[in-house]
């Protein structure tokens, strides 16, 4: 049995940190030690920020984004284009698109993709509210920005079926060569998709 090297409060902190993505038990121990050493400048502000976030963060009732206000900052922004809805699988995807400043449209977060292996069906995803938004009028284009995986594209096809009759144009992201990508290292499918979707130069 491993002997505890710190009090139960620190051990609890290490255990919780070890559950964060990218942190294992060793790195969690290092992070905990760093926090304890910088109690006034890091640990206490972090604890306060975490408490405030836990008390205020909620899901946006319109798009499924996480924010401390409902509707979220994106949905409440009057400068956004109401006629475009960008559909993403996860909040992390929304943040990635916002980081890239790729679109000024509104968003819709599905909360995952259809996955029979994980038992995730359409009723587990935020699809019904998307259909409601599309049928609500004023939407001219729905961009399906889901992952380029078989599961992501199955979800995209399912949503396309559900949106038939809404009147909105349904588009999806292009598949092809990433910036910095070397053809020799790309998989066959990506190369084939890139050739198929070639554009005039």
């Amino acid at each position, binding site marked *: 049995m491993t002997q505890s090297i710190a009090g139960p409060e620190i051990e609890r902190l290490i255990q919780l940190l070890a559950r964060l993505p990218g942190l294992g038990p060793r790195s969690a121990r290092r992070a905990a030690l760093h926090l304890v050493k910088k109690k006034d400048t890091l640990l206490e502000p972090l604890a306060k920020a975490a408490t405030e976030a836990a008390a205020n963060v909620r899901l946006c009732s319109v798009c499924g984004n996480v924010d401390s206000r409902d509707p979220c900052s994106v949905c409440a922004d009057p400068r956004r284009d109401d006629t475009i809805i960008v559909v993403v699988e996860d909040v992390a995807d929304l943040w990635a698109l916002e980081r890239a400043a790729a679109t000024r449209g509104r968003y819709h977060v599905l909360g995952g993709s259809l996955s029979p*292996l994980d038992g995730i069906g359409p009723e587990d995803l935020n699809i019904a509210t998307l259909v409601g938004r599309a049928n609500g009028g004023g939407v001219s284009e729905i961009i399906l920005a889901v992952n380029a995986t078989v599961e992501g594209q199955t979800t995209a096809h399912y949503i396309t079926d559900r949106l038939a009759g809404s009147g909105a144009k349904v588009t999806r992201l292009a598949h092809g060569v990433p910036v910095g990508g070397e053809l020799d290292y790309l998989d066959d499918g990506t190369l084939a998709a890139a050739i198929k979707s070639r554009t005039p130069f």
Partner: protein
Amino acid sequence: MEWTAQAIVIGTRRHGETSTILEVMAREKGRHLGLVRGGRSRRLRPVLQPGNTLRVTWRARLDEHLGAFTVEPLRERAAGLMDTAAATFGIQLAGAHLRLLPERDPHPRLFDALAVIVDTFDDKAVAAELMARFELLLLDELGVGLDLSRCAATGEETGLAYVSPKTGRAVSRAAGMPYDNRLLKLPPFLIDRRHGEPPSPADLESGFRLTGYFLDRHIFEPRGLDPGEARAGFLRAVLPDPVLPDAGPSIELPG
């Protein structure tokens, strides 16, 4: 423990930050799972997509362990499959069907059928025909196959046009005609492999109604499973106006 085989990816699941649990169908090993270390890397993600054919090597200390796969791509067709609804729903449906089999139980006929189907999804009519046959074969491999060799009432081997929903045995057109609305239709393409004409949409729908009825009755309902969205999505994609299978009344047949 170690073996190497050609296998078709039917599913993946995240495992931790960097790894993936890969589910493949191999001819002699059946449906097999294993861990792929680094499976969430940029290099391996496109390789570990359903529909791709890989050369996999499985290693474990004991046979009952999950074990780990090392993989080498042989045929990467996943990107092509993503183009159409028939293909994406089709590969998901094939995976869902194969998931009804016990793990590590070899089913070479189903593997061979899967290997053909994954290359035909660009032709909806062919994909639909092969998927209906795949479901018929699946019922057989699960031990609840239909007897389509002769008429249950007369013993005739020709003119078969119906299947009894109660016994799963074929019925000839002449014997079944009086019970037309109570029997399931048996489309010719499910018994005559040498037919020249592609099956009509009505025949395809009858085929899926037939296989769907027996999958529901013998597999999904007893196991308390939901057939899932993949089958409905595939039927929407390949049939002009699909009607999902429903349970009909069964009748007593002589013989």
